[in-house]
């Protein structure tokens, strides 16, 4: 059993390596590995406009390949990461960014988790208070106190 697991290990590693290799052909890559690494991390932040839910580094689409080439061109030309991103942002708008920027239009998107969390906490607090309230409430009326005293008297006797 254990040996089987060991045999499967290279296979599993292969599966892990698959997506990391992406679709980058050696001919597409920059000769400088540091620059290639930068280009890759920039590319992972940019949406492939054709497939819409993949980054340009992961996509096989023609346009994604063109955009990968442009990212590498800009990186090789000495642009900073943000300059490369804004080069494409100027052309394709917010949608090209896989992480949308915080603007008025995206405020609800970014705020939603906090609103949901806050709303949940508020609901919990309100429900808890209501549950505790009736127990703490209703102090004994004079009549009840007299009855209680009478009972206690009876018990003491």
């Amino acid at each position: 059993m254990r040996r089987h697991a060991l045999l499967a290990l290279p296979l599993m590693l292969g599966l892990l390596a698959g997506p990391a290799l992406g679709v980058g052909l050696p001919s597409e890559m920059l000769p400088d590995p540091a620059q290639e690494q930068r280009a890759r991390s920039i590319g992972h932040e940019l949406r492939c406009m054709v497939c819409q839910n993949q980054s340009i580094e992961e996509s096989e689409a023609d346009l994604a390949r063109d955009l990968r080439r442009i990212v590498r061109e800009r990186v090789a030309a000495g642009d900073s990461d943000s300059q490369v991103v804004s080069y494409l942002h100027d052309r394709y708008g917010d949608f090209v960014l896989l992480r949308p920027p915080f603007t008025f239009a995206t405020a609800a998107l970014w705020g939603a988790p906090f609103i949901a969390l806050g709303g949940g906490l508020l609901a919990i607090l309100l429900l808890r208070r209501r549950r505790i309230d009736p127990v703490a409430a209703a102090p004994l009326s004079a009549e009840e106190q007299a009855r209680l005293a009478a009972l206690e008297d009876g018990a003491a006797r």
Partner: protein
Amino acid sequence: MSENTATPGRSLGRRRALMLAPLGLAVAGGAGFYAMLRGLGTGSYDPRGVPSALLGKPAPAFALPPLAESGLPALSNTDLADLPAPVLVNFWASWCVPCIVEHPQLMRLSRDGVAVFGVNYKDKAGDAAAFLTRHGNPFRRLGRDEPGRAAIDWGVYGVPETYLLDRKGIIRWRWPGPVTPEVLDQDLRPLLRRHA
């Protein structure tokens, strides 16, 4: 403190309101979905639609070579400023099937005197020329963008794509996908009138 016991009617009303809350939520959600589906049907809502980043801006700088076989003049951004009337810039390719669907609409616009400029995207010159011979030529000018770089400067993410520029050369409208007869009548014609 003793609010609950003092006003049992109000508490009951509140409880009933709380019980109706999920129903209200479901109704609101249902109405939202209905509106979405209706919009999908009529085309007014497109979840895959992406607004162009170039709206309200002039055309990006570009200069494309002509398609020699067509005999049409080439296209550059200098041809897209100070215009007598609004113009269309259409990105197309002979290998693009929706381009065939939209071609009759471009031909009709061209017959009506609208200036339609073409950008032939990632195409072979022979194929592009054959397409125009076969389906007709609606273009006044035609640039060849074989590497697809000018298209990226325009923010094109697939052919066909059509842009409307007003007389000052400002991009006012972008339609990704084929200009169908419906798009022509409901969107494009009113815009052409407004910017005339």
